[in-house]
């Protein structure tokens, strides 16, 4: 039963290798192999989900659905350890859904080196699923880095004009953030080892490690930098616009829909429970960064003429809400942050797909060269309208629930953060309607006939529309799934799962002289 989590990761890996090999025989095979694999993953997730809702109905302790703990590098206390709770479940489900969308939307766009493209796509998805499941900090870091390399290739090989620059910039930003996180992970490892006498990277063991103020703050900052780069929070956001703009459609979908979410997920999974004291100091600053991101992203989005770049900047604005919600640290805001992550994944993913389709048809992403598309391609325009409305937070669509919950949650504790964040909602109306007004209404600028959505694209768009409406009308399903996690995060002791059976990975290293003398002093002061 527990091996099911490994299966979730293994299936895309096998599919990635399979599609690479099979491409030599037939260029269509990789697409079908990837779809089948993702469908299999989706079935596993649905199975786990039903299991979860039954458990939730019967028992209170339904936090962790499944877990795996295998020996890996016992000498250093590193285990191959995965676990899934409601939050991971939702994130993995989103990954698989958007993965399917990515495969379908590149059906006609990617015509060269199809096998290697799907190899990278599936490898990246496997890495993302791993990030959402890993509960050993080194394993988490490894998945975190592993998803970068295929994404680097996706942007660098199949991207647009300025792809090499964008790919390298993306890689270096995220890798730099990641290395700071690795430093913090190792620091936490030694602090925990000194405190408990057991050296391990096990997440559950590390929870509740008492940290002296300065050390805790430093380590928290290491994690925060990595997640803030990914999210992206404002001073670290410059890679995003380039990477999203230059990536092929499938790459943009995965970047915006999934890679950014790993940042938000990391904030919730690691920073909140591991460093509660340090956050008392840091949370207001982080919320400030979130608010700045909301406003800045919206303003920048308004100023863009490149449609893809515009959508990229809206991501910065939307994910500002996630940052704000996470660091408000109450149930409502956290619910809102999770909801926002999922809905942003779907709505922005859909917008990138639509931009990709437009570009494939008319050969440009420049807003100034579009206009009056509604009369030519009504179906495409209608779909775009729905997702533009989702993006501006129309009630009835998922994004509204997320943003509303974040604002309500924040307003109770810090109204001065909530007020400017609400301005962001107004700005989102401006840029969303600008897309519609410039590209789809107004005078017709293009004379050539343009093909409307094909049946394949229509199906894809329809399923995403169903998802976003369902999330808007019945958000309670999502909130119920994630609620044990959100509750437990307020009280990290409840997150621990394996308190009774001692972790077999843990090892006792000799205490070398001179280690972290500050820590020892700080520890004794407590």
């Amino acid at each position, binding site marked *: 039963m527990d091996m099911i989590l490994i299966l979730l990761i293994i299936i895309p890996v096998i599919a990635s290798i399979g599609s690479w090999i099979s491409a030599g025989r037939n260029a269509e095979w990789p697409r079908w192999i990837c779809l089948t694999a993702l469908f299999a993953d989706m079935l596993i997730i649905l199975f786990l989900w039903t299991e979860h809702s039954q458990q939730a109905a019967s028992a209170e302790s339904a936090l962790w659905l499944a877990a795996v703990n295998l*020996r*890996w*590098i*016992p*000498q*250093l206390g590193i285990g191959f350890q995965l676990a899934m709770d409601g939050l991971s479940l939702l994130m993995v489900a989103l990954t698989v859904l958007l993965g399917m969308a990515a495969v379908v939307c590149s059906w006609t766009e990617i015509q060269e080196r199809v096998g290697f493209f799907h190899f990278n796509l599936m490898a990246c998805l496997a890495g993302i699923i791993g990030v959402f499941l890993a509960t050993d900090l*080194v394993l988490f*870091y*490894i998945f975190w*880095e*592993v998803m*970068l*390399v295929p994404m*680097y*290739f996706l942007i*660098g*090989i199949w991207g647009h004009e300025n792809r*090499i620059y964008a*790919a*390298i910039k993306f*890689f*270096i930003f995220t*890798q*730099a953030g990641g*290395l*700071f996180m*690795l*430093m913090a992970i*190792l*620091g936490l*490892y*030694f602090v925990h080892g000194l405190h408990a006498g057991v050296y391990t990277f096990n997440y559950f063991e590390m929870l509740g490690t008492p940290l002296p103020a300065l050390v805790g703050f430093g380590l928290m900052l290491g994690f925060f930098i990595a997640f803030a780069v990914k999210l992206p929070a404002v001073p670290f956001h410059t890679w995003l616009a380039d990477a999203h703009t230059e990536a092929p459609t499938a790459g943009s979908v995965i970047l915006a829909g999934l890679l950014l979410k790993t940042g938000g997920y990391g904030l919730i999974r690691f920073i909140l429970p591991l460093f509660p004291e340090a956050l008392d100091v840091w949370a207001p600053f982080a919320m400030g960064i979130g608010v700045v991101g909301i406003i800045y992203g919206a303003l920048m989005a308004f100023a863009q003429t490149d449609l893809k770049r515009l959508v990229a900047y809206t991501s910065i604005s939307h994910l500002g809400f996630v940052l704000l919600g996470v660091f408000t640290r109450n149930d409502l805001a956290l619910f809102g942050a999770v909801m926002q992550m999922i809905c942003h994944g779907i709505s922005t993913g859909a917008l990138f797909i639509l931009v990709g389709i437009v570009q494939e048809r008319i050969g440009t992403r420049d807003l100034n060269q579009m206009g009056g598309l509604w009369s030519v391609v009504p179906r495409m325009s209608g779909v775009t309208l729905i997702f533009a409305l989702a993006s501006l937070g129309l009630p009835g669509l998922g994004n509204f629930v997320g943003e509303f919950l974040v604002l309500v949650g924040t307003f109770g504790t810090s109204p001065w953060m909530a007020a400017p964040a609400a301005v962001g909602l107004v700005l989102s109306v401006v840029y969303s309607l600008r897309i519609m007004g410039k590209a789809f209404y107004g005078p017709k600028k293009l004379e050539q006939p343009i093909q409307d959505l094909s049946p394949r694209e229509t199906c894809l768009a329809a399923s995403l529309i169903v998802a976003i409406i369902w999330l808007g009308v019945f958000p309670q399903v999502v909130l119920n799934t994630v609620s044990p996690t959100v509750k437990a995060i307020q009280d990290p002791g409840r997150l621990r799962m394996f308190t009774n059976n001692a972790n077999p990975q843990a090892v006792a*290293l*000799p205490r*070398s002289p*001179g*280690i*972290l*003398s500050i820590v020892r002093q700080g520890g004794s002061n407590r």
Partner: protein
Amino acid sequence: MSAAQLLTLSPLLVVSGTVTLVLFVVAVRRKHLLTATLTAAGLLVALCTLPMVYRMLPGPMISLITVDGYAIFFMGLLFAASLAVTLMSYQYLEQQKANPDEYYVLMLLATLGSAVIVVSTHFVSFFLGLEILSVSLYALIAYTSGLFRTEAGIKYLILAAASDAFLLFGIALIYAETGTMEFARMGPAIAGGHLALLLPGTALFVVGLGFKLSLVPFHMWTPDVYQGAPAPVTAFLASVSKGAVFAVMLRYFTEMDIHSHDSLVLAFTLIAIASMFVGNLLALLQNHVKRILAYSSIAHLGYLLVALVAGGELAVTAAGYYLAAYFVTIIGAFGVIAWLSEGETEADAIDSYRGLVWKRPWVSGVFIVMLLSLAGIPLTAGFVGKFYVMAAGIGATLWLLIVSLVVSSVIGLFYYLRVVALMFTRVTDDEEVAITPRAGAMAAGVVLAMLTLILIWLGTYPAPLIDIIRKTVVHLT
């Protein structure tokens, strides 16, 4: 000398025996395949004697050399590296149309010298081994005709001779002050009190070692020599020669307890930081792959110094793992260059890598994996090595060094990714490259494939190697 003593020395004896045998065979019959096979076989036998010797530990001691677990681990590493380089050299030399036979004799001699270095626990034996290694290298670097070969050979000769002078003077000063040349008796002799000549002596000693390891500011020769030497020799220079010297340096400074000398710790910290930054920054400016790898090796030795400064069991294990990973990676990288070289022109200019992936996917794949490992990306051996060194550094609270390591390796990413991106560039003229089947390509191909597999194995399941390192190198601490 007893039989047991002879048996513990058997790895060295086997290599010496192979040198003699190959010399004899070359005198009678010059046949490239035969010479190469004999060399490889000799190294293989030497490798096989190591587990036997390990089981006999602790063996009888001689004051000049000590065969302990530490030495056995590094000998294994050096022999395996030489074996890989030998197998790669065959197809490289086949194309050069030079006299290939003496090459193998020199290669074996250099391996012998490096093995003597890692078993030495005495200045005299250390210097002896170092000279055997260096003298063979002078000839190896200038071997085969080619652009800049002689220049590189002479450059290395002059600078190595100068650095040897520093080394000897340093040793003399240390001896004058402590009255011993044995590493093991150095610690107690120093602990006695304040020794005026010890510091200048050690400083000169470090200058000599720094040259061999191409640490900043003793690194000037590295790019020219790396570029000038034949690719397999560069692989040897980067792996075996540096690895042996680092091993003895780690042994010496652990024995003399570096941590009781603040000035030494400071000096090594500065050298390490300078090496990381200078190596990575200058690599950005290069347009030749061999020069890029030369500067990257300077940075990598800087990372290794972090383990030396950290000290303790964790750090020694880290250094062992890092060196093993680095050996696999750098031999693989230069192996690819040797593989791509046609005739006398080496695949050195960065432009010859443009669009390589689409022309020759397999060998490009190997090269990309090697570059990612040098950059320290997970699932490759390079990541585990870097992780281990970082763990050792953070365990000893060397925050300055660790932050430098992180920042400089981010800088390093630029040039690794630059090469990777170039290899993926779409080439418009899809000219079909006629790949002529080459003699010995099989052996080199197998070696490259093996190295890639080992690299990924070490990166995904490092536990067995860590176990081996822990069992062997702990003899040091």
